[in-house]
């Protein structure tokens, strides 16, 4: 079991394995731990094993081996206490679509043993917080995709879990709602709820999470604080919009440059130089920069490198 002395572990897994009946080995002995109060990103390509890991932690999938502890409660020996600590927002919409919005949340409170009066108060609290109170009498099937996702968050929070697990909560949600959900998640994390997030929007993970683990082919290939992970990224590519068109890319010491079109210059920055050097050299050449942006999100770039490294190995193996 991975534990850090002196820190309360919200979750720790030890040598967690899962082999499905069809022989697919989804998890090959993963070990990771999440500190209480953390905002933790669990990333990985499709089929990497994220959802299987979350399924085991939340008791929806039977594990093949290993151990899981949630706030010190082992799921093999103290499942009831372990489950009480978790709120789950699954990847797939799993609402009773014929039930009213209000009853979806109220029933979930009942399943966690909340007395009717408290359950009613909590239902109102979280439906209001997720801006669904006005739709409380509507059937869940009448909600939009984004509203259904918010309803699943309200449902997961109604028993006020210490650990909230969100499996791609913003998939298919428009940017405005996504950003309001980020603010909401930041607020409940600040209030003390530990959050584990899986997402395909790496900008989301970089923006929200303080710790990141990357899982690929059933193994953890990276597990560190976000800042440490991002520091590993030695190179960054910037795209500069220029005020005047150029005919060819300028040669800049310490930078690789490519002219994407007349007014767009791509600059690859190595570890030994900084952006001041870049602008000094551009000033000398009277090249005026209107705006600048990262070509790719930093975490996305690192993620692709880690995952592509494995794919390159695979290509070499099959002789491509």
């Amino acid at each position, binding site marked *: 079991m991975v534990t850090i002395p002196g820190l309360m572990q919200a979750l720790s897994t030890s040598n967690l394995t899962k082999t499905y009946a069809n022989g697919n080995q989804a998890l090959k002995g993963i070990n990771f731990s999440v500190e209480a109060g953390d905002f933790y990103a669990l990333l990985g390509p499709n089929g990497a094993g994220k959802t299987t890991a979350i399924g085991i932690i939340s008791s929806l999938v039977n594990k093949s081996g290993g151990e899981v502890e949630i706030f010190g409660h082992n799921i093999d020996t103290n499942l009831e206490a372990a489950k009480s600590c978790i709120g*789950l927002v699954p990847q797939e919409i799993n609402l009773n679509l014929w039930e009213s919005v209000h009853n979806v949340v109220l029933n979930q409170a009942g*399943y966690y*043993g909340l007395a009717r009066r408290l359950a009613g108060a909590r239902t109102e609290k979280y439906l209001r917080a997720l801006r669904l109170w006005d739709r409380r009498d509507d059937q869940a099937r009448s909600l939009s995709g984004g509203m259904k996702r918010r309803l699943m968050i309200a449902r997961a929070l109604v028993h006020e879990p210490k650990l909230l697990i969100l499996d791609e909560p913003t998939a298919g949600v428009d940017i405005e709602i996504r950003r309001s959900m980020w603010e909401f998640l930041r607020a409940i994390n600040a209030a003390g709820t530990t959050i584990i997030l899986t997402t395909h929007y790496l900008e989301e993970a970089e923006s929200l999470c303080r710790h990141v683990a990357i899982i690929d082919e059933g193994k953890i290939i990276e597990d560190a604080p976000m800042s440490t992970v991002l520091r590993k990224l030695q190179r960054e590519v910037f795209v500069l919009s220029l005020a005047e068109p150029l005919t060819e890319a300028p040669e800049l010491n310490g930078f690789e440059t490519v002219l994407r079109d007349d007014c767009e210059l791509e600059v690859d920055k190595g570890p030994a130089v900084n952006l001041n050097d870049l602008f000094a050299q551009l000033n000398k050449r009277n090249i005026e920069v209107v705006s600048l942006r990262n070509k790719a999100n930093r975490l996305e770039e690192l993620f692709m490198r880690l995952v592509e490294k494995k794919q390159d190995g695979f290509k070499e193996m099959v002789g491509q």
Partner: protein
Amino acid sequence: MNVALNLVAMKTIVRKEIVRVLRIWVQTIVPPAITMTLYFIIFGNLIGRRIGTMDGFDYMQYIAPGLIMMSVITNSYGNVVSSFFGAKFGRHLEEMLVSPMSNATIIIGHVAGGVLRGVLVGLLVTIIALFFTKLEVRHPFITISIVLLSSVVFALAGFINAVYAKKFDDISIVPTFVLTPLTYLGGVFYSISLLPDFWQKVSLANPILYMVNAFRYGILGTSDIDIGTAYAILLIFVIVLFTACQQLMHRGVGIRE
């Protein structure tokens, strides 16, 4: 086990089931009422008049307990199988599986829902029967306990069917090919004393025969079988089926990967 938590959770499942039954009353309440009214009109009134008496009762009076029991059995079974399979199919069963309530609570909650619908429909059919014939309950305790035990047995059986079902066809196979024939051959419409010896002995292997006859004994005071045997069989079925449900839930058959 946290008893208070599980009691609240069980009440929540039962309340949800009642809301479901009442929300889709056109599917859950009306069809059995219409079907049983037709049975009373056709078998009891039109054909029954030509049949005369059975075991000393007019035919309408004789079949009424069997028809009430038939509606209780089919509705208890049907409610659990459709509700639990629907939850599994729509994946909102996960709401219960992630919660700290015990497997027994999930089973008992759904069974209670099935029993409530079975009893509700049974009461409705009884009221309809009273338009056609006179019914006096001779043994109230036997009548009520047999109805409840039979309802529990078939609700548990419906639960097992739902656990194994993978598609909607799978939840209609058992009612169509097992439940309906056993009910029709379970002495609803006739006394097994009318059958040749061999078929009388074969009929004794049909558990529904014991339920129908014990219930008929409770109302009319006449039965083809021993009431003690009926209780023993029902209790054994309750224990065996509940244990099977517990095992299936524990192993996650059909519900957990």
